[in-house]
């Protein structure tokens, strides 16, 4: 069996490959996890928030309205504020909470803030809000989708970035592995020539290269998984800030079994596949030379 030299330069080259592949696995994985977490958050808010101004301030009106609207099954959350509560809340929002005179001048109707169910399609939501707007017990209705749109833009951006980063790092990883294998084969060409003359099959010659690549892939996967876990922990404070900005609860991106399977199966397979292709190509070119 072909033996690989075990000198310092070889060890260093293998170390560089392991680190590069580990980062090539960890960075896109982090991005995909983050994007997944944000996607879940966006999905939970995809129904959007509807603000209703009620026509009168009688508690019975709100109760009746809640019963009627909730019976349709499209409402996930419901929060009623009487005129006084709504005025106080609005005054705090405007920063005039201490100024009772100014606050009393605010004409704020009783308000219902409700969240539609996540699975409601945007056009269905729009029709629903338009219908409510025509009701006599509702003076105005808005569908507030600003936070949703912001979240979706970020979600889509992260997804595109994830694709791009995955492609770039996959390409870089394949190029580095391929270059390393080609270099190693050039170095071991005399040994390969002897083996070919002695009747070694392609499989016999490429086996040690492929096994070596698979091992490097596995080590890279282990380091990559560790990096993902560490990265997820490091991202948590940033996500708390992002939650505040977007108004969307974002679950911390923990490496799940799916991500770990992709890393632990994908890395050795890609490393071995690239090595197989490069070795086969080099062998063919050696034979035709």
């Amino acid at each position: 069996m072909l033996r690989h030299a075990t000198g310092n330069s070889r060890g260093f080259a293998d170390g560089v490959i392991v680190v590069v592949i580990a980062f090539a696995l960890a960075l896109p994985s982090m991005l995909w996890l983050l994007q997944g977490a944000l996607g879940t958050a966006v999905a939970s808010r995809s129904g959007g928030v509807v603000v209703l101004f009620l026509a009168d301030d009688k508690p019975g009106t709100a109760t009746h309205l809640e019963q009627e609207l909730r019976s349709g099954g499209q409402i996930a959350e419901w929060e009623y504020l009487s005129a006084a509560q709504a005025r106080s809340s609005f005054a705090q929002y405007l920063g005039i909470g201490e100024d009772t005179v100014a606050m009393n001048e605010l004409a704020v109707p009783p308000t219902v803030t409700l969240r539609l169910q996540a699975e409601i399609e945007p056009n269905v939501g729009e029709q629903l809000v338009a219908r409510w707007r025509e009701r006599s017990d509702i003076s105005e209705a808005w569908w507030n989708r600003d936070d949703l749109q912001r979240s979706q833009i970020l979600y889509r951006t992260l997804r595109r970035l994830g694709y791009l980063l995955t492609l770039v790092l996959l390409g870089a990883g394949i190029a580095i592995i391929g270059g390393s294998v080609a270099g190693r084969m050039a170095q071991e060409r005399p040994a390969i020539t002897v083996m070919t003359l002695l009747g070694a099959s392609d499989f016999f010659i490429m086996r040690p290269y492929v096994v070596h690549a698979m091992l490097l892939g596995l080590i890279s996967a282990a380091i990559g998984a560790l990096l993902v876990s560490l990265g997820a922990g490091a991202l948590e404070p940033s996500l708390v800030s992002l939650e505040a900005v977007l108004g969307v609860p974002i679950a911390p991106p923990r490496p799940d079994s799916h991500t770990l399977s992709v890393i632990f199966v994908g890395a050795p397979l890609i490393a071995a596949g690239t090595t197989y292709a490069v070795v086969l190509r080099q062998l063919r070119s050696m034979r035709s030379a």
Partner: protein
Amino acid sequence: MDNLLTLTNVCKRYPPGTRVFKNVNVGLGEGDFVWLTGRSGAGKSTLLKLIAGIERPSQGQILVNGRDITALHPSEMPGYRQHLGLIFQDPMLLMDRSVADNVMLSLNIRGGLRAAEKKRRVERALSRVGLDGRGDSHPSHLSGGEAARVAIARALVAGPRLVLADEPTGNLDADLAHDILGLFRQINDFGVSLIVASHDESLISAYPAPRWSLQDHSVIVEA
């Protein structure tokens, strides 16, 4: 009796139109020993490469043990080559392993043997070439003659019926060359067929045997 090796109308040309030889018709029986002679560049190595399946003839048929090797698929070539013994002027030993591991390479490539059996065969092969107890040595610690013997042991360890040797004594002094030739004769006595390429007339005359002489793009067979 059928020949072990038969070349029929074998021609070899290289792309710009350079003809190495044409219409080579020779045969080698089981247990035969022949010298392949000719001046440098006459095509001795090319003829051996054709027989070893390293190169393909431009025309003609090469039958080895009744099988046309020119018709072999590239994937079948390793299997064919495992049954040949190839020896070159340069012993081509691998410097990342011991003498014994160099010899064992042939058996590893062929596969199918237990470690103990492989070890036994390697020891026997080294013993046959006069290198008892040198299995653990590193190739860099061998003399030129010893390295040539290791290459011979590597070619013989898998028990080939046909051995092709291309200028095996080219790098050795006269005494060592005669040692190696003596070894080839011993191998031949065991029934192994040999084609030994050489341009060393003193050596050839010291070991009389039929000769395939490459002259003017043809092979002349001399008994």
